[in-house]
């Protein structure tokens, strides 16, 4: 009874401006992400329609090279995204006040993006891949034996950018969120005690906050990487399926597919495990 009363009183007391703060900013991701998705549909559907014969590249249909290739993208882009995410989290958490609209804007997007399961990102990446795959496909019928060997870094630039963007979208929000949580875990008294000793903001950050939050930030990185690897598993499976010729035989293709996906999944779950153990040892 009392609860309801308070509820109504509070509602009545929140001003127009407060309601705006509570509802409008958190719902912006619907619009921005919706528009972004809408824009993304156009090039993808275009690419699906036409196969530009002049743009055909020979890509090694060598499974190992594809695995390396994929790992290379995942690792480099994820590391970049993790670094960017950490910088971003520091800026949001340590420099911008809680009420700052830029901070609220970014945080609401981060919340939505972290909520999207990595499988969905994987499907998005696969659909981008497939839409460009026509231009990538090994010239029809070229058997694996004729191949010149592994060329792991030779990729279609657009595909590379598209995939990179997806990995950044997937990894960065998780990093931002978990790093912010790590920074928040450093209790206010520690900061106040350091400030009371006349330390500057930079000194407080480098000497106190980062050392305390470090293990948790490491854990945050692991978790973000795990997410990236999970999606990479999906992707590599698709690549293998796509590039291995039908003549290779159904069972060997399937084995390759499974093997690669399994390998990356193991990477992913190991990282999750490392994340958990770091996290537990820190809070113990």
């Amino acid at each position, binding site marked *: 009874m009392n609860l309801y009363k308070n509820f109504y009183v509070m509602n009545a007391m929140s001003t127009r401006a407060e309601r705006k703060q509570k509802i409008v900013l958190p719902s912006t991701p619907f619009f921005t992400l919706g528009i972004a998705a809408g824009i993304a549909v156009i090039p993808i559907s275009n690419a699906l329609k036409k196969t530009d014969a002049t743009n055909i590249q020979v890509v090694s249909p060598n499974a190992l090279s594809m695995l390396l290739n994929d790992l290379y993208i995942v690792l480099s882009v994820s590391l970049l995204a993790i670094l960017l995410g950490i910088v971003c989290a520091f800026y949001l958490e340590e420099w911008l006040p*809680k*009420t700052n609209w830029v901070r609220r804007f970014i945080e609401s997007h981060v919340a939505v993006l972290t909520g999207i399961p990595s499988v969905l990102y994987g499907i998005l990446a696969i659909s981008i891949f497939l839409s460009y795959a026509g231009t990538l496909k090994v010239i029809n019928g070229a058997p694996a034996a004729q191949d010149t060997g592994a060329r792991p870094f030779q990729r279609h630039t657009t595909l590379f950018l598209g995939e990179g963007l997806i990995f950044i979208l997937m990894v960065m929000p998780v990093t931002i969120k978990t790093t912010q949580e790590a920074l928040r875990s450093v209790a206010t008294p520690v900061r*106040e*005690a350091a*400030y*009371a*000793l006349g*330390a500057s903001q930079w000194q407080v950050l480098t*000497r*106190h906050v980062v050392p305390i939050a470090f293990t948790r930030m490491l854990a945050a990185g692991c978790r973000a990487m795990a997410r990236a690897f999970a999606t990479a598993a999906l992707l590599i499976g698709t690549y293998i399926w796509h590039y291995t010729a039908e003549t290779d035989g159904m069972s060997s293709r399937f084995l390759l597919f499974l093997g690669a996906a399994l390998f990356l999944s193991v990477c992913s779950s190991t990282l999750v495990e490392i994340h958990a153990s770091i996290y537990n040892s820190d809070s113990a």
Partner: protein
Amino acid sequence: MENKIEISDLRVHYGDTPALNGISFDVHPNEILSIIGPAQSGKTTFLKVINRTLEFTPEATVEGSVKLDGVDIRTIGDVYGLRRRIGMVLPLPVGLPLSIYDNVAFAPRAAGLRTKSELDEIVERCLQQAALWDEVKDRLDTLGTKLSGGQQQRLTIARALSHQPEVLCLDEFSIAIDPVTTMRIEEVLKTLQKEMTILLVTNLVQQAKRLANRTAFFLNGDLIEIDTTDVIFSDNPANQATYDYVNGTFG
């Protein structure tokens, strides 16, 4: 005599909740001024105003003025320098992720001191003053957080002394310390009085009686009374509430 600190009409609100309702008094140089009062009376808030750490509580608003040596502390541009002029000891020890040595050397280093011999000297002197030196002199490299609660509290006292403050604020410093060590530190405070002004917030009225030259009684954000400790603890302080609180018949 010039006043060390002049507080006039100081008001603090946390959002809509008032914490200090317009208090005014002066702090004399080289005195021990104790501040007593029941919980929630605004004692900690007052100390946070003085070293401007209340600025980290976004919803807190401060009105009125606090002057240190005649200068309004809010007009002081170098807030880090201001904080070094004021030593602060909090009720519960706050462990910084540093070794014992680095804990004490932190503030001098933050101020730009780099000479090893000078740092060594400061560390030793402050740990001596905080009655901790004998217990830790052989393990200055261990983490400060590995010490016992009472030792950590003395470490925070050493830390607060390390930047040679003009004003030393202690907020219920003896909560985590055993009575014997508390007595040792009280002796130290009496000698430190020659070099600095001491603001002692305490829940132990007997501690105020033992140490303070003057005593202020806070109640619900109001300054009820400030007078020499003898008067406050006599049978007839100006206010009945003071008498009741001091004699434990309050409430």
